[in-house]
């Protein structure tokens, strides 16, 4: 008997979907207890369309091949002192931000997908989430290994995980992922699986990695593209999950729309870090934040939302605000870090004259008018030997936890202040979407660990700034402050043989 030829779809069905069974001895709800409280109605898990059809054996095979390639490059990079090939030591600060701000998020995503990969009732969806979970573990680990060599030659990497739980600006990504993980399984899937992976990670990874390529950073570009190859699978899962939920029951639409409105905004605010990285931190620029936003969100995201219209999904109202903010975001963000760099684990600097010209060209309507003068003021102060570090602690947005630095788009010189009063206490927000996220679930967000308030309550080492720096494991004069004159800058000059 010659065996029947099975095509990929049939084979995958037999090897995966058919493995589940109806419980007879226990209540299935006891095994999957979190499936209902969010209000999502699933009537038939069998309608799940597998977004990709990798069996474990193919998974091991292809992933092993990717890993082999990746680590061969890491080894070569270390053996050849690859860190000396980057365009300039300033560049390295972008990847410090990556390791401290992005990589721990990969681990949080790993745990979150493990949760949904355990808790969703349908085996097709579970297995896809499980594969994403183990991929995310891959990402944190390959990133730690990629940065391991940089850590031996630059400051600001060595305390990345201690800082992740404590340092003020790292509460932005930390709270983002914890917000998703503390939600139910379906919200997590819409938050990270769809909104973040599908709509926004291209904006995180592709510019970072092209930036790495432009700036001679072989280690980062390699892990980045290698991670992106998993990302392509993740995106497919994200798209499938939203379609699936929407097709299951019409009552799911308003819930999903609310989650989309929340998570696209949360994700966008998180990407503020990427915006400033692209426009200010790369010595050799790739494209502006505005251009990246247009290419990866407005264009690609636009097609996506057109596709989702059939289910009744609407692009969030605030996308108009984002459209205007794209000309302001990176400048406002870098200004925050420029003046608080004494409490940050990377260096900042004023843009050079050529860089400012590039910014004028990329942002003709905003840079010269609103932002060039800031850098002129900074340069003036620096020339007087009074490099500007601001005093005190910033007011933070209760939701996104970024300092209240964003401005009204109707008047870009006016800070945008929003507030809500809940149970007689006042809460502050940087924007309408951050306010409405809070207003929808105040009992969740009152519990946010806001770094500034924690410092002022004495929970971060107690006492003055020096105690807080100790709590952060941030040695003054090493990983923090202005780039010029930093130990990083001095070592770089020594390597390059310039006085």
């Amino acid at each position, binding site marked *: 008997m010659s065996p029947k030829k099975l095509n990929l779809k049939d084979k995958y069905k037999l090897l995966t979907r058919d493995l589940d069974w109806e419980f007879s001895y226990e209540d299935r709800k006891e095994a999957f207890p979190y499936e209902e409280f969010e209000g999502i109605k699933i009537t038939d898990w069998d309608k799940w369309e597998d977004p990709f059809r990798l069996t474990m054996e193919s998974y091991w095979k292809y992933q092993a091949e990717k890993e082999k390639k990746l680590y061969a490059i890491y080894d070569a990079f270390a053996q050849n002192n690859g860190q000396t090939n980057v365009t300039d030591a300033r560049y390295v600060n972008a990847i410090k931000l990556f390791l401290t701000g992005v990589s721990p998020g990969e681990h949080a995503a790993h745990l979150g997908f493990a949760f949904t990969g355990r808790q969703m009732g349908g085996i097709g969806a579970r297995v896809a989430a499980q594969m994403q979970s183990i991929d995310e573990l891959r990402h944190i680990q390959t990133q730690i290994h990629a940065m391991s060599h940089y850590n031996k030659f630059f400051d600001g990497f060595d305390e990345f995980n201690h800082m992740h739980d404590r340092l003020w600006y790292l509460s932005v990504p930390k709270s983002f992922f914890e917000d998703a993980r503390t939600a139910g399984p379906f919200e997590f899937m819409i938050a990270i699986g769809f909104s973040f992976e599908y709509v926004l990670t291209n904006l995180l990874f592709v510019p970072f990695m092209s930036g790495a390529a432009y700036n001679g950073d072989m280690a980062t570009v390699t892990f980045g593209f290698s991670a992106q190859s998993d990302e392509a699978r993740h995106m497919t899962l994200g798209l499938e999950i939203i379609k699936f939920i929407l097709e299951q029951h019409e009552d799911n639409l308003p819930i999903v729309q609310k989650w989309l409105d929340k998570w696209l905004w949360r994700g966008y605010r998180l990407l503020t870090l990427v915006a400033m990285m692209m426009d200010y931190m790369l010595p050799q620029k790739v494209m502006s934040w505005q251009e990246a936003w247009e290419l990866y969100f407005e264009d690609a995201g636009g097609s996506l939302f057109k596709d989702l219209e059939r289910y009744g999904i609407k692009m969030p109202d605030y996308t108009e605000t984002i459209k205007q903010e794209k000309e302001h975001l990176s400048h406002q963000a870098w200004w925050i870090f420029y003046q608080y760099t004494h409490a940050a684990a990377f260096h900042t600097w004023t843009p050079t004259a050529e860089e400012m010209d590039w910014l004028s060209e990329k942002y003709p309507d905003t840079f010269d008018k609103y932002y060039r*003068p800031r850098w002129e*003021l900074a340069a003036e102060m620096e020339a007087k030997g009074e490099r500007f570090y601001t005093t005190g602690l910033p007011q933070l947005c209760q939701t996104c936890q970024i300092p209240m630095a964003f401005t009204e788009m109707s008047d870009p010189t006016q800070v945008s202040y929003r507030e809500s009063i809940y149970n007689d206490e*006042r809460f502050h927000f940087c924007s309408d979407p951050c306010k409405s996220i809070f207003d929808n679930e105040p009992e969740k967000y009152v519990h946010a660990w806001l770094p500034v308030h924690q410092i002022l309550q004495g929970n971060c080492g107690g006492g003055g700034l020096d105690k807080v720096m100790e709590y952060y494991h941030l040695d003054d004069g090493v990983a923090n402050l202005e780039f010029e004159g930093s130990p990083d800058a001095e070592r770089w000059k020594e390597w390059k043989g310039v006085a």
Partner: protein
Amino acid sequence: MTIRALRDDYHGEFKDSLEKFGGAQLVYLGWDKHQMFCSSRAFPLPPEMRFQELLDNVMPEAFGQHPEFNQIDWNKAQWILDNSAFQPDHSKSLTELDIGHKSLLRLVTPELTGYKGAGI
């Protein structure tokens, strides 16, 4: 405003309520159209602090780095407290002036237009 959670009694603890600040209350201070300071800032202040003390002791710490700080005419300064216009009696305390925990107090100086007149 109801949250959907596994249990109906889900609640978060207020992480920043007044009693957690050791007798102080938080006040946020901002200076409109002076974006040299990237954002308004948070100060723990005694509720019995007089407004005049705030002007004398806190404002310089908050905004003294600005080149225009010395040009502020405090008698002409305008104020916005929690999004409403506000005319403080300098001899009164924060509590008496209804400057509460986590209140946002904004200084407005229309005659000072910031560095190079750019709102900085």
